[in-house]
């Protein structure tokens, strides 16, 4: 399906795999597409930047909200992640808790949410098909990511204080729903 993607949109898809690998994720989730989009030079990245979302702030929001080791949730049950981390590092050295999780090698598959996001990006093009050439650009990928309403993407955007509607507005797609 990628033959319909512009160069920039393909770069986002490739970048999402790199983001997933760096975060040691087993699958490419919509949030990794979002992170890759923050580094996009084209429409999608521009929309994010105009809403104040840059790669650094988005990545730290993803790590906070999206780390499977959710410190806030653990704290609600009386588990202090920092103490666990300190104990692991005392026994096994600095970064032990991160190293405990092997970095995924080779090809990382798309999560279902990301597949749906990419399908939705195609749908975003079709909605505007008469006016545009029919290619899926990075703006459409961003619309696709927003359309699947992934819980982690929603939490990250909420943490960054960005409303989905204002991003869609930036991309001239406020009629999405």
């Amino acid at each position, binding site marked *: 399906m990628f033959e319909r993607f512009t160069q920039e949109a393909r770069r986002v898809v490739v970048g999402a795999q790199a983001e997933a690998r760096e975060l040691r994720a087993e699958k490419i989730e919509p949030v990794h597409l979002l992170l890759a989009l923050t580094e996009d030079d084209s429409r999608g990245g521009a929309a994010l930047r105009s809403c104040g979302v840059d790669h650094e702030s988005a990545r730290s929001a993803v790590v906070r909200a999206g780390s*499977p*080791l*959710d*410190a*806030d*949730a*653990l*704290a*609600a*049950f*009386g*588990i202090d*992640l920092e103490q*666990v981390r300190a104990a*692991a590092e005392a*026994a*096994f050295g600095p970064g*032990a*808790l991160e*190293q*405990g*999780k*092997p970095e995924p090698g080779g090809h990382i598959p798309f999560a279902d949410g990301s597949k749906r996001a990419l399908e939705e990006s195609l749908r975003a093009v079709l909605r505007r098909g008469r006016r545009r050439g029919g290619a899926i650009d990075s703006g459409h990928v961003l619309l696709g990511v927003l359309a699947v309403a992934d819980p982690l993407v929603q939490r990250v955007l909420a943490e960054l204080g960005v409303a989905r509607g204002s991003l869609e507005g930036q991309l001239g797609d406020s009629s999405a729903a």
Partner: protein
Amino acid sequence: MAGPTTDVTTAAAADDPAVGLRAIRALRELADRLEVLQVGNARGRGWSWQQIAEALGVTRQAVHKKHARSRKDD
């Protein structure tokens, strides 16, 4: 009644399904990572897969399948 404010806050959060389910996921992830560290340490100290399996309460096949691949030894 020590620290009632903290207790109430904690109870409220733990009562929220979203927080509770995220905590379960985090606990599983935490257990997985600690298991990788502990199994690696045990192997480094010469424990057999059978001994590790018994300590973890799983079959030897299960622990070998899960960990042998990510380790250089056998």
